[in-house]
């Protein structure tokens, strides 16, 4: 796949379709790929990498890139194309300045999972069919690739490319029963006390680095409410457990109905907080209450929070939901 993508990138540059290409640049190790703009064939030959560590979603970079002169090519995996559509719907990306190459994907790996499986001092990795052979300073470790997949890839919701100017590889379909709401359902089945304890433990690790917000394609406000002193809730660090919760509740709410469940927020969190569980809760609620909705599946339907039906459920429905009572 890497060779196909590199060749395509070079082709698009050389035939003048685009004057720059958004791709992944090789790092110091094999897993630390950085999103980069490539402008010459030499750069692509030397540094362009596509591997199981190419998790980064380029849609958000296109907000700025598409407003520059000329045209940019971007390689988008199925989950990335949903974010792309959502941003198009919100008029954040200028479609004419982007050439989207949709690429089929069967899952990205999470380097922290490889570390957790006992690989310390990782120097290199080889794919051997089902397995990954990891070379480390302390010997070799073999792991099953399926176990090293990023959480969001394990319950991938769709192999379908929903936005593209051309495709590379065979894409697939939307996946029914991906199981992505299982963790949410498990939490919903706990008592309120258990849930409170769970979230208190998770959110107390938050360092307010804002990586989740800054990588999220749905968070594209020019001035975030948390950076705006006039909003009354601006802060750079949580002074107590209330502020820890407030940031996450508000952010999840601000992206509710627009979040495409791309999983970037959880991937980038330095403290491994399962942020996707907050966003998926909103998605699950929306699906149950207002009809199944997948943000980014197309560019026409109204997001659920900008829409209504006259027979929508009353908020008191929350009291009657499943799960243990207080």
């Amino acid at each position, binding site marked *: 796949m890497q060779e196909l993508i590199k060749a395509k990138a070079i082709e698009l540059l050389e035939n003048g379709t685009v004057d720059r290409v958004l791709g992944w640049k090789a790092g110091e190790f094999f897993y630390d790929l950085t999103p980069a703009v490539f402008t010459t064939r030499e750069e692509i030959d030397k540094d362009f990498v596509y591997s199981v560590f190419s998790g980064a979603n380029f849609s958000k970079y296109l907000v700025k890139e598409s407003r520059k002169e000329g045209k940019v090519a971007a390689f988008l995996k199925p989950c990335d194309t949903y974010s792309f559509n959502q941003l198009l719907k919100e008029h954040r990306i200028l479609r004419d300045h982007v050439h989207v190459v949709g690429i089929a994907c069967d899952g990205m790996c999470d380097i922290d999972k490889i570390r957790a499986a006992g690989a310390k001092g990782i120097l290199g990795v080889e794919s051997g069919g089902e397995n990954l052979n990891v070379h480390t300073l302390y010997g070799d470790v073999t792991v099953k690739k399926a176990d090293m997949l990023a959480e969001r890839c394990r319950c991938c919701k769709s192999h379908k490319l929903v936005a593209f100017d051309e495709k590379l590889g065979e894409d697939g379909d939307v996946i029914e029963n991906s199981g992505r709401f299982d963790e949410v359902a498990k939490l919903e089945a706990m008592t309120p006390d258990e849930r409170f304890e*769970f979230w208190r433990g998770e959110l107390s690790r938050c360092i307010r680095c804002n990586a989740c917000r800054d990588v999220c394609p749905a968070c594209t406000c020019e001035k975030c409410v948390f950076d705006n002193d006039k909003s009354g*809730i601006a802060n750079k660090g949580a002074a107590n457990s209330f*502020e820890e919760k407030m940031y996450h509740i508000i952010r999840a709410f601000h992206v509710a109905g627009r979040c495409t469940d791309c999983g970037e927020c959880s991937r980038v969190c330095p403290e491994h907080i399962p942020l996707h569980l907050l966003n998926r809760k909103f998605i699950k609620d929306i699906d149950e209450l207002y009809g199944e909705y997948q943000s980014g599946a197309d560019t026409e339907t109204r997001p659920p929070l900008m*829409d209504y*039906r006259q027979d929508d459920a009353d908020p*008191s429905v*929350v009291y009657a*939901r499943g799960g243990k009572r207080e």
Partner: protein
Amino acid sequence: MQVTNEEFKPTIVAFCCNWCSYAGADLSGTNRLSYPANVKIIRVPCSCRVNPMFILRAFQRGADGVILCGCHPGDCHYTTGNYYARRRMTLLFSMLDYLGIERKRTRVEWVSAAEGAKFAATMNDFVATVTKLGENKRLEDLRCKN
């Protein structure tokens, strides 16, 4: 600190839309229907004005319960405001529940300008419910405590 029910008086913040529920509150007053004095009413032009940040901030600043009152769905002064508020609040309350905040601390009630009695009854009921729940501990900000 859980005090006995007779002593603890919860602080309730009620967001009331100007056209229906605030007028309803007014009506309950002119009809001499009493409801507890610890309900603080904040008048907003429409229930749709209420932002999830307001709800959280009310809890942060000492509220033990927050209630949103608006026009009946279909009768919003601005035609569609309360429809959006309905969806918004449902999702927000569900998220608060998901984080372990007691469900009964938040409520939405549709009160029209003619329903003075309903307003008073709702407030009495809500205060009683929140009194039973006790002080808000899960969404409190200790810096704002008296």
